[in-house]
């Protein structure tokens, strides 16, 4: 039975004009500049310096550290949002996690407030405290330094610090996960604490002290969160006493809600939304703000919404307002980004993903009225975070739902991303997940898949630059950027190779070598996390740890995967195509010529002629050319097989993925020229998207990408498409939905869009002041165009633009 009762799925009657609170919060979200918040850094340092008991087991130590912070965390109130508190002390905060990369801010302490690119204000007092008190304490204690001390200067760490081979996610976080707040909603945190206390006693009596300590850790961390909630209530009561009568009522109501939840079970929609939000604040006290994704909110909040509506406690507008408030709160933080990173990788939010629609754990249509309210909130606010994702299950979800999702994308020009339930559920099942669990998947951060609330996915563990092994295969284990240094194994000289298979073997040898070092580093950093960064608070919100008495970081979750994403997929496939077709099949280019061209960055007229031949004559990924299709498929399958040979430190699999955030721009800037004719320093193609200009036919492009779908890409992918806007938006929505449906039928997993022209983006680059709110999809998440670095702006401008009606790429000449 359908849970949709709304007459107008678009909810046209509800606008920013009719909801002034949302209009005000939206305006504030654009007006605010992110400020650096040192509060967490201050209190975790204070705890470890002054109160730590080195004899405590890691999870207990972590819980005490987190609780020490939560008991001192500022109960903030910055605006009229109906939800309390915030992840930081600032209205829009960039929190510092000294366990990871906060010390990269050290050189900029005096200048970060005023820097040219995305300044992040920091008061002189806070800068002084960081310089003299906090950073010195951590100088030898960060995750990476503890790993260096424990394991020495091993190859994996050296490759990581070289930056051009792979990025090790665990040096900066684990985070990237979808907790479940259902236990908090049903039982309240006091209920979970009661369970933890009981289990602690039982395990202690049985002599299982480690497990008993884990339960104690959960209790201590949750008590810290409850302390924060009760201080929020007290703070709002105090403000109500001082405030004007019309403000006092709202503050007292908020205080009343905080006294009730998350301590006790939620009874109303407002209490449920507040529970979700305060728990979300809690997990940010423990883990860094990277893609901590609240999951399927239209599912877990629906019973409360439905109850209130039936009881006449809430109307559609009030519910929509609360959802809008939650959206604005989820966007209340960004990552602290040092200027050096800003130049190469900047512009991202913290990407908390919300997942809507799809099917339930029985495989039935899960779209409900709340799904549409959340789509409307997304449409009205059009803000960067949360990263909203819509699931679509053909045969279960209605065409009306797909068209409404398409409508929101056309309207916002960017969000939400769409995910194919049929393909995604199948791939999670192929990873050994129970069918019901696979059906209940949610998106982490950009595009990664996770059984909601059951999986510690660590989906950003490895970000591997595929260009590196390609260059090492071309230059016998060396890279142009590292000159004569022998990096990888000494593979045969390409000029002496007589077949493409020989080159493929050299390439896969370098690839395997690099992946094994990336995995080795991930495993070693994982071991350090087990000592330094257990997650007792987050463990209370994921299925498994509370049953087994084992922290998430020890493998306590029901599912324990590690994600490995890949940068430069399309450029590498096209380079392999060029080598196979032009050197070995048609023999129109020799390997010597190619290597000289790549080495010299296609300098002089001869080089340019070669570059044009490579660009125009070689088969391209994104077309139906059999060589291109074969090499794309083969690379995907090879990567899957390499990772399949490894089990992570928590006992789970490695899952290859293809999303790039802004790394394809940053890493592209340091990669040499490639055999596909790409010149040195140019951006690489994003996600799993074909190279810009390489796939002129939209249907061929979609079909070519979709053909890669299936078990070999369990970590998710980002296909980034740009469509020309059309005047007749309702006709466009229909075409749009048709194309999505056709792509999903062929096996595509995910797709996201920018509905804008080359010219508009070019103009936005030239006149950023005219486009303060222009939101774009990068590769898995949304960003404001004005905040992106020059490389990313260039990539978005030159990204292939398709005309939906003609199905052809729109020519773009500068």
């Amino acid at each position, binding site marked *: 039975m359908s849970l949709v009762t709304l007459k107008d799925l678009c909810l046209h009657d509800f606008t920013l004009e009719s909801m002034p609170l949302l209009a005000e919060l939206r305006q504030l979200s654009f007006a605010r500049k992110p400020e650096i918040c040192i509060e967490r850094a201050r209190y975790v340092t204070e705890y470890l310096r002054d109160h730590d008991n080195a004899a405590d087991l890691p999870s207990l130590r972590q819980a005490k550290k987190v609780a020490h912070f939560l008991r001192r965390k500022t109960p903030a109130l910055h605006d009229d949002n109906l939800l309390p508190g915030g992840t930081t002390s600032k209205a829009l905060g960039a929190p510092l996690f000294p366990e990871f990369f906060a*010390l*990269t*801010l*050290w*050189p*900029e*302490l*005096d*200048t970060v407030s005023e*820097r*040219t*690119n995305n300044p992040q204000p920091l008061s002189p007092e806070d800068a002084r405290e960081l*310089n*003299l008190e906090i*950073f*010195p304490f*951590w*100088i*030898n204690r*960060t995750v*990476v*330094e503890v790993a*260096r001390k424990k394991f020495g*200067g091993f190859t994996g760490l*050296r490759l990581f*610090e*070289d*930056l*051009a081979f792979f990025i090790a996610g665990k040096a900066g976080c684990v985070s990237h996960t979808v907790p479940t707040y259902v236990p908090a909603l049903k039982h309240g945190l006091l209920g979970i604490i009661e369970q933890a206390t009981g289990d602690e006693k039982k395990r202690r009596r049985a002599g299982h002290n480690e497990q008993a300590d884990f339960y104690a850790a959960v209790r201590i961390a949750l008590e810290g969160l409850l302390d924060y909630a009760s201080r929020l209530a007290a703070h709002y009561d105090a403000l109500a006493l001082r405030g004007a009568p019309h403000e006092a009522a709202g503050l007292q109501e908020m205080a009343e809600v905080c006294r009730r939840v998350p301590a006790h079970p939620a009874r109303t929609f407002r209490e449920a939304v507040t529970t979700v939000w305060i728990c979300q604040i809690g997990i940010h006290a423990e883990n860094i703000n990277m893609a901590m994704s609240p999951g399927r909110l239209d599912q877990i909040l629906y019973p409360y919404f439905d109850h209130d509506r039936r009881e006449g406690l809430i109307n559609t507008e009030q519910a929509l307002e609360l959802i809008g408030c939650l959206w604005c709160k989820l966007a209340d933080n960004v990552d602290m980004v*040092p*200027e*050096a*990173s800003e*130049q*190469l990788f900047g512009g991202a939010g913290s990407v908390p993903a919300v997942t809507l629609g799809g099917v339930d754990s029985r495989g039935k249509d899960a779209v409900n009225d709340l799904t549409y309210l959340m789509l409307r909130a997304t449409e009205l606010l059009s803000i960067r975070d949360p990263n909203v994702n819509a699931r679509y299950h053909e045969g279960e979800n209605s065409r009306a739902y797909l068209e409404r999702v398409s409508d929101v994308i056309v309207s916002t020009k960017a969000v939400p991303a769409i995910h194919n339930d049929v393909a995604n559920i199948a791939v999670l099942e192929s990873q050994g997940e129970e069918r019901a669990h696979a059906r209940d998947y949610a998106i982490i951060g950009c595009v990664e898949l996770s059984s909601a609330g059951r999986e510690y996915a660590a989906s950003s563990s490895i970000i591997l630059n595929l260009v590196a092994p390609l260059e090492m295969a071309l230059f016998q284990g060396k890279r142009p*950027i*590292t*000159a004569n240094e022998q990096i990888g194994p000494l593979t045969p000289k390409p000029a002496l190779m007589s077949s493409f298979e020989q080159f493929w073997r050299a390439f896969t040898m370098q690839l395997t070598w690099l992946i094994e070092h990336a995995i080795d580093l991930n495993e070693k950093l994982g071991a350090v996390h087990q000592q330094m960064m257990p997650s007792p608070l987050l463990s209370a919100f994921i299925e498994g740890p509370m049953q087994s008495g084992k922290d998430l970081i020890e493998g306590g979750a029901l599912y324990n995967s590690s994600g490995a994403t890949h940068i430069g997929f399309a450029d590498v496939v096209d380079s392999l195509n060029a080598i196979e077709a032009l050197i070995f099949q048609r023999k129109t280019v020799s390997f010597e010529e190619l290597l000289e061209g790549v080495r010299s960055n296609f300098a002089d007229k001869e080089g340019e002629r070669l570059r044009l031949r490579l660009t125009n004559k070689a088969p391209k990924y994104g077309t139906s050319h059999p060589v291109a299709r074969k090499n794309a498929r083969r690379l995907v399958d090879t990567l899957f097989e390499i990772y399949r040979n490894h089990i992570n430190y928590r006992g789970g699999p490695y899952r290859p993925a293809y999303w790039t955030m802004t790394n394809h721009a940053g890493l592209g*800037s*340091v990669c040499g020229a490639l055999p596909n004719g790409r010149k040195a320093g140019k951006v690489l193609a994003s996600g799993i998207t074909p190279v810009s200009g390489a796939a002129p036919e939209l249907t061929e492009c979609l079909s070519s990408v979709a053909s890669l779908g299936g078990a070999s890409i369990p970590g998710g992918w980002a296909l980034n498409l740009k469509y020309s806007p059309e005047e007749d938006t309702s006709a466009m929505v229909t075409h749009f939905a048709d194309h999505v449906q056709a792509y999903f039928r062929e096996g595509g997993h995910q797709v996201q869009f920018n509905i804008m022209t080359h010219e508009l983006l070019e103009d936005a680059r030239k006149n950023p002041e005219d486009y303060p709110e222009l939101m774009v999809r990068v590769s898995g998440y949304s960003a404001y165009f004005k905040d992106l670095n020059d490389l990313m702006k260039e990539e978005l401008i030159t990204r292939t633009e398709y005309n939906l009606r003609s199905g052809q790429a729109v020519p773009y000449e500068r």
Partner: protein
Amino acid sequence: MWSGSQINVWQKPAQWATLKVAESIIPVALERKSASGPFGRTLLTHAGGSTWLGKVMLEQIRALLGSRLRDCLESEAAEEFLEVLLRLMQITTLINPSFRENVTNFSARYQFLSRDRRLTVAVIFDDGWMCVRETTLPDPDITLTFSTGRALLQFLLTPNPDLLASVLRHEVEPEGNLNYLYKFAYLARRLQSMVIPA
């Protein structure tokens, strides 16, 4: 040699004379152990700025080095940048309490190497003291190998910090605990702001 490259930059005789005095005194004064004898203590008294002579002399040297650092930043000739920077850091540590505060309770061993190995400089911080030597340290906290003085300068001091890009381009190759590098970059930029106020 460590000081050879910059002699020609001190054009005026008075400046040159001041520098020569500084060259004889500062290295001794800045070494805590060397300064432990009566002679050392006398030098330290003057060099530490606790006498009128010391203050005038050190302020003048600091001004000269500051001027030279400005030249390095503004010109393309950045080969002596590291030497100027370290001398300025040493002397500012000595005479400026607010700058010294940054290295109080701070111990660290830095190794700077030019890629051609013509420059091998060790910098040791030890609770408010800073020592610079042409030598190789057995176990530095961090080693920084740089292709050219210009690359190092850009790495540490350009208006738009270029740490990551420099590493990616292999113009500067750090090995060891990068947190010490961040700290050093902070000290360098603090000095830069003292020499060239915004």
